[in-house]
């Protein structure tokens, strides 16, 4: 049978649509009601708090806002947060990439156990995660005496904060990559190798470019969480002002000391980060859906 015989006359569909609207269309009143409820809810739960952060931050004028941000302790907190985020995002980028590569492209025993292990940080309370590191590396901890004898500081110092952050943010990159890599399969890698590419060259020329947007997406979420992490970092940091306080910890301290304007000023930076993350995420999602 030829195509022409199957296809209906070209004029027919338009008329049909005008006569009978699609059955899934609700009456306008219902539609408006549903959308209003959704918007009001979003506004109350997300929009209002976000706006109030900025309102509170600027409540005593922008001079106070700037002063709060250039305060040495605040600057130290910002610097520490950036350092911790840079290190832990970097580490998780490598770990996540390697882990998802191994899981998606190779068969080995213990694979499902590894997948479960990657999800662990999502199911463990961050406070417990922080506590684990204190119990391991603290002065009363398992390796504590050894560390003390060799004058290595982990808990209440940068390494501890980084470790806690890495633990909490570990799943983001791997979770983003594993499903995509599994879907893509191994045939492109096989093609590359059969064309004479080495393993490393195959990874950098084929595997990595195929997941680059998903990787960036994972890194973005990982970074947002790394900068905003409170629980785990709070346990291992020791709250030493100007030394081991990250931005979330600094915000809490300022708030507890009734320095609301200063507290919200620092908080506004984190809120800004959230907004930037959101924008970047939207752009990346568009790229991701366009390519797959």
């Amino acid at each position: 049978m030829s195509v022409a015989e199957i296809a209906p006359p070209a004029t027919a569909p338009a008329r049909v649509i005008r006569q009978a609207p699609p059955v899934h269309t609700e009456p306008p009143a219902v539609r408006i009601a549903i959308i209003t409820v959704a918007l009001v809810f979003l506004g109350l739960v997300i929009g209002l708090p976000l706006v109030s952060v900025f309102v509170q931050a600027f409540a005593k004028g922008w001079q106070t806002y700037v002063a709060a941000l250039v305060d040495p302790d605040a600057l130290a907190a910002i610097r520490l947060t950036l350092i911790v985020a840079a290190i832990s995002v970097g580490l998780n980028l490598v770990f996540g990439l390697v882990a998802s590569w191994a899981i998606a492209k190779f068969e080995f025993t213990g694979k499902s156990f590894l997948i479960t292990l990657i999800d662990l940080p999502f199911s463990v309370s961050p406070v417990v995660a922080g506590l684990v590191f204190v119990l391991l590396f603290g002065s009363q901890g398992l390796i504590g005496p050894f560390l003390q004898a060799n004058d290595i500081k982990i808990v209440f110092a940068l390494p501890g904060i980084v470790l806690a952050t890495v633990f909490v943010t570990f799943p983001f990159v791997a979770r983003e990559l594993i499903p995509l890599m599994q879907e893509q399969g191994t045939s492109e890698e096989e093609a590359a190798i059969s064309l004479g590419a080495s393993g490393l060259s195959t990874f950098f020329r084929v595997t990595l470019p195929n997941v680059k947007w998903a990787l960036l997406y994972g890194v973005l979420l990982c970074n947002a969480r790394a900068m905003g992490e409170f629980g785990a970092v709070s346990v291992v940091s020791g709250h030493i002002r100007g030394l081991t306080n990250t931005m979330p910890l600094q915000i809490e301290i300022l708030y507890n000391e009734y320095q609301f304007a200063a507290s919200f000023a620092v908080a506004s930076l984190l809120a800004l980060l959230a907004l930037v993350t959101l924008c970047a995420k939207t752009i990346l999602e568009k790229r991701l859906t366009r390519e797959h």
Partner: protein
Amino acid sequence: MTIDVVGVSKRFKSFNALDNVSLHVRSGELVALLGPSGSGKTTLLRIIAGLDWPDAGEVRFDGEDALARTVRDRNVGFVFQHYALFRHLSVFENVAFGLRVRTGKDKVPDAAIRARVSELLELVQIDWLADRYPGQLSGGQRQRVALARALAISPRVLLLDEPFGALDAKVRKELRRWLRHLHEELPVTSLLVTHDQEEALELADRVVVMGHGRIEQVGTPAEVYENPATAFVHDFIGETLALPAEVRAGRLYAGDRPLALDSQGTADGPARLLARPHDVDFADPGDAPFAGRVLAVRTFGPVRRADIEIAGRDGPVVVEAAVPLQQDLATGGLIGLLPRKYRVFAASA
């Protein structure tokens, strides 16, 4: 380049993918590995390419041990079933890939890469698509890119895994002819995996019929069609009309009735008489070795087929027979079947 496969076996967990398979492919030949899914044909192709490793056996290229070399160093062109084009690279860069990854003393200068890729794209007749991405191409165009990419490394062995499997019938036929032409132009030994018998019979110099991890028959298209070595080959290649029978003391019986047909030396026991539908004539029910009731008659174009129910050992069997256009056949009536040319195989085979 000759390819020798000697006693190759491969197991996947409890599944026997290849069972002691041996095959010799002559230089410059185009050989089709034909079989149903699960027959081990793709596994054999992947082992020859070096993408899989056999549990036992040898693979030799021109007498040299190929298993000592990885897929990287075997210099085989492999065309994957779903093309496996690099989705993030343009058509040009896809074809250039095999040359770009060469480093050190093998490094190919950019100008030489450009010249070679242009030449290949012209050869596969898609030079106007050089800047497109795989996602923007039709199935047939992707197939041509995959082939050009595999040919870029000047392989002496070309392995194709279901090269036309994902294409529609018309494009498939066109590409088939074109591939045959290409094979003749290039100094290459080609091995092609397919489950499409028409493709194998039309394209290949020799056909290797595989089933259940073994080679059932190797021969020219005419040989495997005209003289199938086993019942499996007869069933798998071409249309088969299977009639139930039994061999007793070297003679053929249908039920209790002795038949005036040759048992062809088949051992005593239940047997199947296999014939091509066009080799079975209609006759008066009383005169013919087999008789049955006509269930339905269908006509498509020049072909007429009838479903005929025949009494078998374990209840009625329905066979599909070819009906000459001038023959009148009433549904519900009795009709006799007289095989002119047939093969007898033991029923268990």
